[in-house]
């Protein structure tokens, strides 16, 4: 009796050991793909869960999800990378951040999948190659515009939105006269301020110069940068920004506009998702394009592209590729995701009518723009972006120091580019 029990025990131990040694996707049909991403709470976690469930139904592959809040994700994913513990798939921002990870050989190329799935014909705005290869599937993008509270504008007697810088400044004066702070900005986490720098530089020096600055071949001490910062300084000095932007988050700024304490905020289209959830709808808000500052400068639209990448040592690269293909190639999945998140779809086959009127307007603006530029912290390498974002916060705190701030920024940026 004793002997047989012991033998049975040993046999079962051996069997379970063997099972554990088998790769997961061979032991179970479909297998499992691990993913980490920054779409939590306000940014559409529930929608993503539904999409993963649909993916499971279609392929039998289970998606094991570990979301991290947007701000913490930026460092959280690096902690996992440093520990050699990256998930199979993770969300990342197209542009300089992805380039940085590609350069360290941490991503799995997806050229074959891209070709087989015919993604060239499907993907809008995502024609980004990194060192000549495909690594990222874009699955949504955003546009940064001047989002405003319609009622506040009405009350201040503003019926037409400004097209030029002078009109814009006149509008700010009108709003102040009506007792409303014209511009809300929540730059506590620094990045919300970048859109001001992006647009002012793009509207004065133009996209080509900006690309040089982002690549480190132009200097923060150039007259082009100073001119853009000076325009920004004029607004700050005139009291056009609601008080102490560095004390508030972007959601606080959105709330200030919703409550009518401020008239507008320069923010990405994800603000529509946030507002819609807070019962502040299309009927209450709209946006206008950042005004023209100098004639003859090509009009650029600014925004980030959200994408998914596969880590170089993914345990289930095959399943991961399937997930990426599923996320981008199904128009219905894309339409659902876009509407939940307040994003524009990266799939050209998504019917524009599935968007809200505000988002249709955003889509038109992006389509008609002469250039699409990634926002600052996605356009320049992460170590440099870190320097610049702090510089913007310092400038907002003390605009009078602009010259010395730009000198410091150039010194630190040059050092960061060298590393």
């Amino acid at each position: 009796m004793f002997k047989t029990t012991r033998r049975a025990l040993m046999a079962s131990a051996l069997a379970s050991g063997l099972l554990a040694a088998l790769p997961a996707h061979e032991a179970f049909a479909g297998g499992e793909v691990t993913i980490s991403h920054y779409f939590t709470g306000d940014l559409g976690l529930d929608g993503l869960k539904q999409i993963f469930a649909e993916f499971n139904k279609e392929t039998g592959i289970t998606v094991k999800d570990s979301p991290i809040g947007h701000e913490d994700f930026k460092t959280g994913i690096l902690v996992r990378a440093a520990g050699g513990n990256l998930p199979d798939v993770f969300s990342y921002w197209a542009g300089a951040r992805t380039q940085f990870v590609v350069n360290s050989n941490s991503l799995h190329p997806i050229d074959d999948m891209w070709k087989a799935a015919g993604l060239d014909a499907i993907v809008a705005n995502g024609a980004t190659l990194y060192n000549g290869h495909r690594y990222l599937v874009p699955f949504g993008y955003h546009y940064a515009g001047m989002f405003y509270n319609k009622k506040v504008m009405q009350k201040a007697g503003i019926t037409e939105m400004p097209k030029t810088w002078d009109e814009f400044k006149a509008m700010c004066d009108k709003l102040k006269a009506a007792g409303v702070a014209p511009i809300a900005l929540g730059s506590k986490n620094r990045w919300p301020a970048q859109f001001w720098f992006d647009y002012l530089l793009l509207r004065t020096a133009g996209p080509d110069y900006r690309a040089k600055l982002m690549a480190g071949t132009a200097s923060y001490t150039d007259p082009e940068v100073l001119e853009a910062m000076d325009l920004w300084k004029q607004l700050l000095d005139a009291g056009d920004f609601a008080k102490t932007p560095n004390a508030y988050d972007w959601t606080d700024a959105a709330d200030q506009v919703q409550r009518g304490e401020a008239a507008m905020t320069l923010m990405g289209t994800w603000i529509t998702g946030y507002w819609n959830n807070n019962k502040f709808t299309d009927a209450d808000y709209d946006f206008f394009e950042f005004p023209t500052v100098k004639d003859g400068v090509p009009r650029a639209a600014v925004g980030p592209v959200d994408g998914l990448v596969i880590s170089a040592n993914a345990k289930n690269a095959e399943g991961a590729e399937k997930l990426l293909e599923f996320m981008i190639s199904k128009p219905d999945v894309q339409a659902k995701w876009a509407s939940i998140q307040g994003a524009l779809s990266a799939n050209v086959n998504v019917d524009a009518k599935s968007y809200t009127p505000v988002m249709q307007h955003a889509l038109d603006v992006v389509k008609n723009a002469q250039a699409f530029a990634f926002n600052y912290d996605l356009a320049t390498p992460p170590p440099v972006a870190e320097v610049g974002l702090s510089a913007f916060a310092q400038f907002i705190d003390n605009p009078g120091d602009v010259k010395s701030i730009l000198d410091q920024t150039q010194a630190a940026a040059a050092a960061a580019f060298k590393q």
Partner: protein
Amino acid sequence: MNLERDKTLWRLAMLIPPLAVFGVLVVWPLFSSFYYSFTNWNGFGANYRYVGLDNFLQIFDDPLFMRAIVNTVIWMLAAVILPTGLGLVLALLIDSQVPGASVFKSIFYLPICLSAIVVGQIWVWIYQPDWGLLNTAINLVTGGDSHFAWLAKPGTALYAVIAAWSWQQTGLAMVIFLAGLTAIPSDLVEVCHIEGASTGQRIRQVRPATVVVVALGVINSLKGFDVLYIMTGGGPFNTSDTLAMHMYNESFKKYHMGYGSAISVVLFLIALAIIFAYFRQLRKVDQIYE
């Protein structure tokens, strides 16, 4: 003889599990930090190379490092003065048998039971410019309309965080002082009172406790990261960075894992020096008692 050897073997065997855990969680990461401090690793992937002392030399050219050192020293001094001073005063008050002493003891000790995240968030709310407790109180007293952003201004951010941190640490200091005071039998204390001992003389009784409180305060201040991370993250624009925060920002925000490791090595050496000084002081105190 045999029995003795068995005992020793047993002791060694029993030591293996904790030593293994300590080795994996403390010693190994420590040595990897040393190792990476001589490389230009960015945290992602395996391409990095040996750069010699470059990272350590870079420290001297880094204005943010200098600011972090200054802030760390300010933090340490505050750690010695605020929780120690307040803790001593509270301990003396509670020990002098004021009515409800045990209730007060619990209340003042409570913050130390909270996690740093909770403490940080409570104080973020207290400092909130529009409806925070601090501005509301100031406005009530002065009749003004202050919306001062304590955590967003370079002049106040660091001190605002230190205040929150001291609020928590005071409870710990108080308990250690109380232990020092109550270690003296109460009939002896009574005799002292009758004989006319002054408060100053009583304070002298807690010298050993003071060494412990100050040393713990200084060591804890070097670890003062979590409250700062929640409240300012070193901001606005790095003005409230401490060494630990600067190390974190360089490693995980600028992707300079090699340089970040070099900063952590410097931080480690400073902590080591302080701990040595602490143990020397402890030995002196022991000698007094003997």
